[in-house]
């Protein structure tokens, strides 16, 4: 089954971590990504630009509105994701626990429906 691992972190805190810590974290993410590519679990994964760059689109009665946001009101914001293939939830959560961001933020593990045919 495929699982989407959504990485949530406090953006404001992330902005303040400083050069050395940032370099260390980037290295950890590269190592982690490499390990799940080698293990055959990796399908996709990206880091997202901050919530301040986000736009929200809604279509109501045929009319499209585009707004700024969502605003970073919650404590943690979506900062990146991995799409992985795992044999079950236990494997998926074990992989999620190895994401460097799990040490400070949280990882939401969502099973993905198989494509509709």
């Amino acid at each position, binding site marked *: *089954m495929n699982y989407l691992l959504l990485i949530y972190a406090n953006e404001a805190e992330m902005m303040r971590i400083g050069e050395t810590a940032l370099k260390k974290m980037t290295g950890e993410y590269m190592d982690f990504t490499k390990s799940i590519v080698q293990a055959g679990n990796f399908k996709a994964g990206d880091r997202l630009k901050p919530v301040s760059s986000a736009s929200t689109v809604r279509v109501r009665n045929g009319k499209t509105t585009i707004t700024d946001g969502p605003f970073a009101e919650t404590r943690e914001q979506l900062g990146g994701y991995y799409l992985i293939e*795992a044999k079950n939830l*236990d494997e998926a959560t*074990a992989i999620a626990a190895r994401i460097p961001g799990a040490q400070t933020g949280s990882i939401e*593990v969502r099973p993905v429906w198989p494509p509709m045919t």
Partner: protein
Amino acid sequence: MSGGTAAHVLEEIFRREAGRVLATLIRLLGDFDLAEEAQQEAFAVAVEQWPSHGTPANPRAWLISTGRNKAIDRIRRDIVFRTKISGEISAAESNLDAAPDAADEEVFGDDRLRLIFTCCHPALSEEAQIALTLREVCGLSTQAVARAFLISEETMAQRLVRAKKKIRDAGIPYETPEPSVLEQRIEGVLAVVYGVFTEGYAATVGVRLIDVELCEEAIRLGRLLDTLLPDHAGVMGLLALMLLHDARRESRTSDTGDLVLLENQDRSQWNRSEISEGLLLVDRSLSIRGQVSSYAVQAAIAALHVRAQESSSTDWPQIVGLYEVLLRLQPTPVIELNHAVAVSMVDGPGRALDLIDSLAARGRVTQYHLLHAARGRLLQKLGRINEAREAYSAALSTTMLEPEQRFLAARIAAIQGICEAPVSG
């Protein structure tokens, strides 16, 4: 064989085999609902055939293979409507060869353990874990599980449906966890079993103090775990704890359903066989090196209570010491409160009251009726009658259990009596 006896034999076999048959069918079929239906159908065929054809030599293997065949028939029928599940039938058929034909205790044991770990998976809510365990592992009817939690059968049925849907949708495995997480997952299972027991031992709401059925199911689960995971300090500690508490069941309530405090309980009513089994398990659990289970420490405290011939010979200093060990393992407000009560028996009510007041000052437990009740007792012993009455009233307003309400109301009435009686001597 008379009809009545045959029916009795059948019932006995069903009762004994239901859990094992269901656990194995879930593994073979990979689906809870399908397995439950298959199990019911197999039992129905047995009711029909066994009285005339005779009971098969290996009833368990017969029930499993009949259930599995019924399920395959059902999947085949479904194919007429749904064309996309050929995978399911080939999986079920390929598992057919893997099905044990003899009564291999190890394989059945493994299946039951898998089922327990699935039902107690941390990705399910705590209430769903308890409900699923009672329904699927203990084999209680949905109605019985609903009754235990004082909710309607319909609500409980929905809760079970949602839990099973989560298992399917999230891909919660039907497997014994990897060694790296096994200990943590066993802790989760023990918490569920203890949750079943405590709800039975001291219900949080309602008219009865003790729900015997839940206590018995929890102990049955504890024994099952002790068989499946032998020599595990936590499993033995929990089983010991439950047995030592349950041994006092009869004496904990009066004939009228009122609460009887430990010091007033009739010790001759205590269940000696549960006590000796429990004492043995505490010792075994605590003798395992490098694994101190908090359940075993709590059991050791219970052991000191049941070992005392009479209330006055209770070894309170050692109980205080054990609560201090427990506080290091598990610093929770409830344990702090129990520690304070034990301290009052050694150092007197004044010091215990200081401990409880400091606990209350840190918040979080002000809604806990036993804290107020304990304060009331200490204040009463110190002769601070008005404050004692206030504490008992606070306790009364926070408990939802009728026997506790009656007990507290009686305490308050007794204090009124003291206040109103003429001062003598």
